[in-house]
């Protein structure tokens, strides 16, 4: 069932233990730390002097109110889309060729979501108020609500749950094989995982159901990102039903690209046992998604320019042939190459990992620039009653914060690579409906947990909509959006409860001193020695060595 794992020829595989990195790892970590420090320092300057240090200005009066930060936020959340989708699809469709990259994909999702949250915080004019007010006052009628609750709470948390649940087995292995200093961490993660068929069967179920429920959540969360722009009739260039789908597709493309890059780099730096076949599969996803996105771009362009309203045509013109034409050329060029290189490789059946890595890097650059092109021209040149056309160029502060967020992603991934195996250890295939003994307690507890979660979701969401507030402006319950988010998180945590709840088993009676005395083990206390000396019955032979654990 599992393919033969090809070791990359230049590295000796070391099964079961953490890899020792080459020099490249240290260099990248240093770069990541430097970038993060730069980003933080730039942000403190922004906090001190105000957002005037960015390149953003009032739309309609000479600038754009949203620029690199929002583009970066959308880009980072977009990257996260691919990670967890690849991992979920691999499990749902039993695509074993993708299993070696599944954990890296999930890790990338988590890292980029955390970085995305910091990017949007950097954009807020009053991030202090944002952190204090959003948990109490967030309104679901705003697409930003989906951002703050569904994306951060639902999406990030569900990814963490999936990550946790799928990593328990390897964590249990690491308790035995890993560095002693981190044993507490592995034990916590393993949460009492025992290598029994029961655990495995339960794990098969949870991974299936998690994958099934995470996918609609992903699509919803990403659609709200697209809706931020697509529902605004007053802004030509944004008002489009294609915004939500095209955001999802570009998220997939850039995410797969970032995953390919990450896998290739990590594999080289750490000598991971990831076969080329996994990367080639990702490459196929890449060119398909890039092609679909290019198709969407053509559709949008035609719609805007064929017989569209004057301002829509103007905005499209500025992007394709006007002030933004160079950026447009870069973006489309990168995305086209991101399609062409893997496609040609596919046609000629001559796959090359290096070529894929280049294509992946180009797709990411193209994606970020394209997102900037979505956000900015509709503000600088798409304002109906503009006093003047605008200009926008990110200032060094914005670039520094971008570097900081990328550095954060880099650090999270790299540091994690040193404390936990990035490739799943071998395990028997996960079955969705493997036989399980009856466990009514577990079922009851999980049902109760899930029911509480659904109740919290219902209460939190309706109150966030101000349905019970009468004529007042605020929710009736304090922290109603947090109640909703907690409900979503609890619902996903049902998977953890289901897996981690200890199974009913008959506990062996702890051996009494008398029983211990009746074995051949050397007496450890004076009392035991005395008891041994007074033994009149013959001591039974020692039991055979304990049965081997089900390990390969």
């Amino acid at each position, binding site marked *: 069932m599992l393919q033969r794992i090809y070791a990359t020829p230049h590295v000796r595989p070391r099964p079961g233990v953490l890899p020792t990195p080459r020099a490249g790892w240290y260099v990248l970590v240093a770069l990541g730390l430097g970038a993060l420090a730069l980003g933080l320092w730039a942000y403190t300057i922004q906090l001190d002097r105000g957002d005037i240090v960015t390149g953003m200005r009032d*739309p309609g009066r000479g600038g754009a109110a949203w620029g690199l930060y929002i583009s970066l936020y959308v880009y980072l959340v977009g990257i996260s889309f691919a990670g967890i989708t690849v991992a979920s699809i691999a499990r749902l469709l039993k695509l074993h060729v993708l299993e070696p990259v599944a954990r890296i994909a999930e890790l990338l999702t988590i890292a980029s979501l955390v970085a995305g949250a910091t990017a949007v915080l950097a954009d807020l004019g009053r991030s202090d108020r944002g952190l204090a007010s959003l948990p109490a*006052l967030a309104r679901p009628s705003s697409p930003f609500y989906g951002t703050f609750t569904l994306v951060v709470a639902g999406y990030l948390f569900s990814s963490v749950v999936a990550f946790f649940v799928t990593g328990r087995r390897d964590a249990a292995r690491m308790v035995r094989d890993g560095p002693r200093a981190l044993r507490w961490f592995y034990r916590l993660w393993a949460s009492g995982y025992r290598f029994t068929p029961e655990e495995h069967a339960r794990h098969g179920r949870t991974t299936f159901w998690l994958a099934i429920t995470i996918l609609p959540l992903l699509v919803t969360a990403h659609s709200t990102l697209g809706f931020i722009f697509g529902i605004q009739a007053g802004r030509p260039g944004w008002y489009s039903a294609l915004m939500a789908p095209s955001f999802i597709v570009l998220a997939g493309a850039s995410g797969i690209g970032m995953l390919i890059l990450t896998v290739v780099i990590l594999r080289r730096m750490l000598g991971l046992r990831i076969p080329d076949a996994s990367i080639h599969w990702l490459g196929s996803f890449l060119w398909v998604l890039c092609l679909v996105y290019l198709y969407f771009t053509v559709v949008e362009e035609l719609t805007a320019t064929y017989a569209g309203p004057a301002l829509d045509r103007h905005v499209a013109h500025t992007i394709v042939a006007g002030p933004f034409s160079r950026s447009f050329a870069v973006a489309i060029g990168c995305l086209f190459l991101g399609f062409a290189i893997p496609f040609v490789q596919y046609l000629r059946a001559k796959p090359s990992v290096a070529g894929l890595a280049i294509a992946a890097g180009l797709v990411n650059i193209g994606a970020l620039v394209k997102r900037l092109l979505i956000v900015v021209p509709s503000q600088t040149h798409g304002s109906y009653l503009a006093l003047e056309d605008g200009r926008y160029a990110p200032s060094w502060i914005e670039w520094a914060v971008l570097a900081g967020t990328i550095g954060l992603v880099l650090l999270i991934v790299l540091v994690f690579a040193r404390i936990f195996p990035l490739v799943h250890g071998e395990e028997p295939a996960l079955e969705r409906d493997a036989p399980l003994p009856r466990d009514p307690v577990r079922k009851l507890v999980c049902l109760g947990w899930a029911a509480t979660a659904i109740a919290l979701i219902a209460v939190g969401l309706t109150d966030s909509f101000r349905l019970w507030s009468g004529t007042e402006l605020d929710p009736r319950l*304090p922290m109603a959006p947090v109640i909703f988010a907690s409900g979503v998180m609890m619902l996903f945590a049902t998977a953890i409860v289901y897996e981690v709840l200890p199974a009913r088993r008959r506990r062996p009676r702890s051996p009494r001193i008398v029983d211990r005395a009746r074995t051949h083990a050397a007496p450890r206390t004076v009392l035991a020695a005395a008891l041994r000396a007074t033994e009149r019955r013959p001591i039974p032979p020692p039991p055979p060595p304990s049965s081997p654990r089900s390990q390969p």
Partner: protein
Amino acid sequence: MGADRRAFLRGTLALPVLAALPRGAEAAAAPHRRRRWGMAIDLDRCAACNACSVACRQENNIPSYGADPEFHGARPEWMSMLWQEPERPDGLPELLPLPCMHCADPPCVKVCPVGATYKDPDGITMQVWDRCIGCRYCMVACPYSRRSFNWSEPAWTASEQQMLNPDVATRPHGVVEKCTFCHHRVRALSERARLEGREPGDDELQRLPACAAACPAGAITFGDLDDAASKVSAQAASPRAFRLLEHLGTEPSVYYLKKERG
């Protein structure tokens, strides 16, 4: 210190009580007639002198940041004057004084994540400086581009501080601001009238906002659009009246009057 603590505890204990209290109905609190505040701007009288814009800046403590080029596009402006070059060489330029439209169906209110902007029952689209988190979503959502952001902390010289209007709070950096139809003046007038047991008269309302009061041509009229006897409702029903971007369905409350050009 003891009084502080006690008061603080009472404050915290008030929270569960607050949650349990029945919500007061707006109608019971405000037995006065519901209004629909609106404005009419007569473009045939407007000479683009900008007195409205200047008066608005003075009334609402809008910072100007001098002539620093870094602040281009970063100077808040509530009442703008849109000037478009004439189509014909001998024609007149198009002039449009632009306050906030106070739309009846405002896109900005829909997109605010924290409810820092909301639609007052009397028709004013309010902006709450103290709640705004500065995400600027309302700014990009406004089709009329009538919102400004405080990109920096306003700094007032000593003499400028003396000129600040105490009736309007100054905004810190990081919040969005916009025209409020001089809500503070409307509020004070309503209270004074209510004390005297009457409703504010249309003659008091017509020149109530700072821009209307300052216009030397009397081009700006304010009042209750639902009051059939008010000047603003008569102007809104005039054949010369039109609104901006009506096809977007925002239902603005600001009417412009202009003779059809031949």
